């Protein structure tokens, strides 16, 4: 059952230097209870896409088009009050940096209770406190009765992220958007937080949209992966296919640039040549062609024509290379 359906989402930010095309026609579906990852470099449009789901892109001149259907209702067409009712109740968000995401002036208990109270006005103080305590317990904060009255600065980064997760889950949302939930954390804490998200997802039955640039995180908890580049989805595949048989040169490059235990000590880590394109002045044709080692083999096609997402095996890929060549060239590329 499709819970969320994003159709041809486009987000443009008007700036003094020109229009920034952060998202250029992204479409995807999320089923209830599913975990989808959106992967990409900084500036690929993944966070803007995630923020759009709750209409959280702010700025003097933000233009959003397309449709974001949440159980059939278009989030982009809702009134302010309607969106507010969705925020935190149907769709909740976990932010990247737990050190800045919590309000430093209020106790964590109050902040959790507030998230519940907004959507359940009139709840008694006593019940709210119970709810806050219960939430803290669920996300594994020790001594909740003592901790509930403490302020964010009295917690470690990992603990704060648990509190952010508690806030997100207090209303058992249908969709949980996690925008780089582990990026700001110590490596040892990262795994714990991912486990917690997975466990909470099980308990609440929420779908998870995970935004990350960390392929390790993707492998850990997701089922489906969308790779974004310069505001477009360039590959969409199951997590197994994406890792075993990437069907887009960019995905292949991403995978090869990750160090693993099998990488030899003196082996050079591969990197994708060049830098991500400016979103104000995108390259013509396929946005990846200036950095793609296969582009020259197709003549001028890559630099003139934007490739559409199409089926390649069981995945979808936005590349001009013929299917056989894609599978040939790329399938074996991840040989390690």
């Amino acid at each position, binding site marked *: 059952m499709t819970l969320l359906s994003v159709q041809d989402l486009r987000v443009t930010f008007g700036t003094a230097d020109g229009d920034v095309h952060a998202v250029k026609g992204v479409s995807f579906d999320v089923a209830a209870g599913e975990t989808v990852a959106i992967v990409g470099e900084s500036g690929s449009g993944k966070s803007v896409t995630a923020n759009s789901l709750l209409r959280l892109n702010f700025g003097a001149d933000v233009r959003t088009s397309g449709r974001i259907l949440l159980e059939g209702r278009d989030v982009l067409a809702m009134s302010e009050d309607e969106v507010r009712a969705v925020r935190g109740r149907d769709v909740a968000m976990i932010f990247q940096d737990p050190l800045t995401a919590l309000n430093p002036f209020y106790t964590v208990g109050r902040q959790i209770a507030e998230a519940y109270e907004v959507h359940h006005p009139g709840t008694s103080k006593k019940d709210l406190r119970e709810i806050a305590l219960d939430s803290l317990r669920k996300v594994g904060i020790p001594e909740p009765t003592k901790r509930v009255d403490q*302020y964010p600065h009295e917690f470690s980064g990992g603990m704060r992220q648990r509190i952010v997760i508690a806030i997100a889950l207090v209303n058992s949302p249908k969709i949980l958007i996690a925008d780089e939930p582990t990026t700001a954390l110590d490596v040892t804490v990262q795994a714990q937080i991912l486990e917690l998200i997975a466990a909470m997802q099980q308990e609440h039955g929420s779908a998870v949209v995970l935004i990350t640039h960390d392929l390790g995180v993707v492998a850990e908890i997701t089922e489906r992966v969308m790779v974004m580049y310069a505001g477009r989805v360039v590959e969409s595949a199951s997590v197994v296919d994406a890792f075993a048989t990437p069907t887009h040169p960019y995905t292949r490059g991403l995978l090869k640039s990750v160090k693993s235990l099998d990488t030899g000590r003196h082996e050079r880590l591969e990197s994708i040549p060049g830098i991500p394109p400016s979103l104000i002045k995108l390259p013509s044709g396929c946005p990846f062609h200036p950095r793609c080692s296969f582009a020259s083999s197709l003549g001028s096609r890559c630099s003139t024509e934007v490739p559409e997402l199409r089926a390649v095996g069981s995945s979808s890929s936005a590349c001009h290379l013929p299917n056989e060549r894609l599978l040939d060239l790329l399938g074996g590329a991840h040989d390690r």
Partner: protein
Amino acid sequence: MIYFVLRRSIFAVVLLLIVSAFTFVIFSALPSDPAALTCGKNCRPEVIESNRERLGYDRPLIEQYGSYMKGIFTGRTYGEEGSSIHCPAPSLGYSYDRHECVTSLIASTLPVTASIALGAFVLWMGIGVGLGTLAALKRGKWQDRVATAFSVIGVSLPTFFLGLIFIMVFVIWTGILPFPRYVGLTENPFDWFMALLLPWFVLAIISAATYVRMTRNGILEVMNEEFVRLGIAKGLSRRRLIVTYVLRAALVPIVTIAGLDFAFLLGGALVTESIFNLPGLGKLTLAAVVNSDLPILVATTMVAAVFIVVANTVVDILYGYLDPRVRAK
């Protein structure tokens, strides 16, 4: 928290002692001979010397400071029996120019200055924070432009200029208001209010200008904070978000500066008091400068210092109360 308050208070007392010593030394080092100033231009040396002895200026500086400090707690008597002058505690010295104890001079002028400062403070916080908030919430719209224009004009206008314009417009041309003549609050509240209306506005407009900018920038800065975004993502209403998240955070630094500005004003609004002919601390100080009335100058400087130090301490304690992150340390 109690420990925090106690520590800050002790620090304040030590600071005041240092300030008083410095003030005393600086004014003693002035080239003018305080004893010579006691009896006008054509004065016989014997009179000067007898006055020097009477006022204690013949003693070593450290001793003078000692009896000055002692006078604050026990009162002080100048001269021998018969022709002696007694200033009861807390004695801040004796003005030979005005033939009055400095403490009673300050006691009569302080309420005037306090009236000016309090009203101006309320007004300028209202105008400054109100207009600043409006400008931030309507960023880029005409309200923002008006507030910014107000801020620029207010910052650039000198007090005496704005004060004179106000008198021209409201008193001389239109006659809406009488020329300010100070009346005590307890005497006649209405006259008190009418006399202070113009000085309040002059001070408020000039001070509010800075606060408009500070509030506007503070709010816009807080609005970019991640925790405000989380507040939005929770589904908080705009109103609730602005009051409990944005203003709560943006006003903390403003409270700090406001406390100090208020204390500064309590030390005397020299220009404003002079223009509107209000018998406050500022005017007392100005007259003392003109007449080289050192005892008054020492005293008003110390009084102003007390206000600043006390305000600093209060603000520190308040800050700890307003920001939980400070409280912990």
